[in-house]
């Protein structure tokens, strides 16, 4: 299998070895990954709650999107960079756990959810910017987002319990 070979090759790169054997690298990167949850999950939920109409209700949706987007972008970037670094420490082990695969699938779905939102109801945000009740489609997108991110956090936590013991 070319993919397993690729992971094995990654595993044997000097970078991966350093990541794995350094005393500090993994705890530091993992700490950044976990604490950036505040920036990314916190702000993503605030946005979803606005779409549901239960938080920041007095702000136009477009403004909440506009203000939170830069932070979400920074948060997501940090999450991806630190996540890739953690993965690079031992790619075959990560790939061996089902929770890692679940997390990756859900991440793709969360991305699709954003794309669909932006292409449909999100594009017409001007029409319901201050509506007392947000449209059903926006609420559905928000619920899907919350469910997916909860699942992604849960799967991420489960990975650590399911990794094979270091050899």
């Amino acid at each position: 299998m070319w993919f397993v070979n690729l992971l094995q090759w990654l595993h044997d790169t000097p970078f991966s070895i350093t990541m794995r054997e350094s005393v500090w690298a993994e705890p530091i990167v993992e700490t950044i990954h976990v604490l950036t949850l505040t920036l990314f999950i916190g702000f993503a939920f605030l946005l979803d709650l606005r779409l549901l109409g239960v938080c920041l209700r007095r702000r136009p949706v477009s403004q909440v999107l506009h203000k939170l987007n830069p932070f979400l972008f920074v948060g997501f970037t940090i999450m991806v960079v630190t996540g890739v670094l953690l993965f690079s420490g031992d790619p075959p082990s990560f790939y061996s756990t089902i929770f890692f695969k679940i997390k990756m699938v859900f991440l793709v779905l969360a991305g699709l959810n954003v794309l669909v939102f932006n292409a449909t109801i999100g594009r017409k945000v001007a029409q319901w910017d201050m509506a007392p009740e947000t449209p059903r489609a926006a609420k559905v997108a928000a619920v899907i987002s919350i469910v997916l991110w909860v699942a992604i956090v849960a799967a991420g936590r489960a990975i650590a319990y399911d990794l094979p013991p270091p050899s």
Partner: protein
Amino acid sequence: MWLRTLVFHFCQWCNNSSWGHGVRDSVWLFPFVEIFHLLALGVLGGTILLLNLRLVGFGFRDEPLPELTREVRPWMLGSLAVMFVSGFLLFSTEAVKMYGNIGFRYKMFFLFFALVYTFTIHRKLTTSDETRVSPVWRWLAAFVSLALWAGVGLGGRSIGYV
């Protein structure tokens, strides 16, 4: 010292409690509670970040700060409650061990001051017209808030390593 004895007995009591046993003896309950702790961390940290960013003039500037505070406060307090309950359950599974864990001690130290600060000075600042306070003080106030909460987070992260 009587306080030390009291705290130690409290830890023993938690350790031997039904919920301490329950979470400890279950295979999936500990990770399950942990996930709630992590998700509430996201929301709590998110609301605190948002208020501090607004305090120093980033984002939602055209809305008075007290209004923003009023809107996000229920979520902040709600997630704080989830943090407490889930944290207490996690603590109870190995409370006696936590008593001697230096990371946990740091976490509680920072938590105490973070809570006191959040519900006094920080609360006062975020529920009144912040423009009456000079930017220097606002930056300092936001920095202290983030530093105290970062202490709680880093202390928590270190528990498993020390």
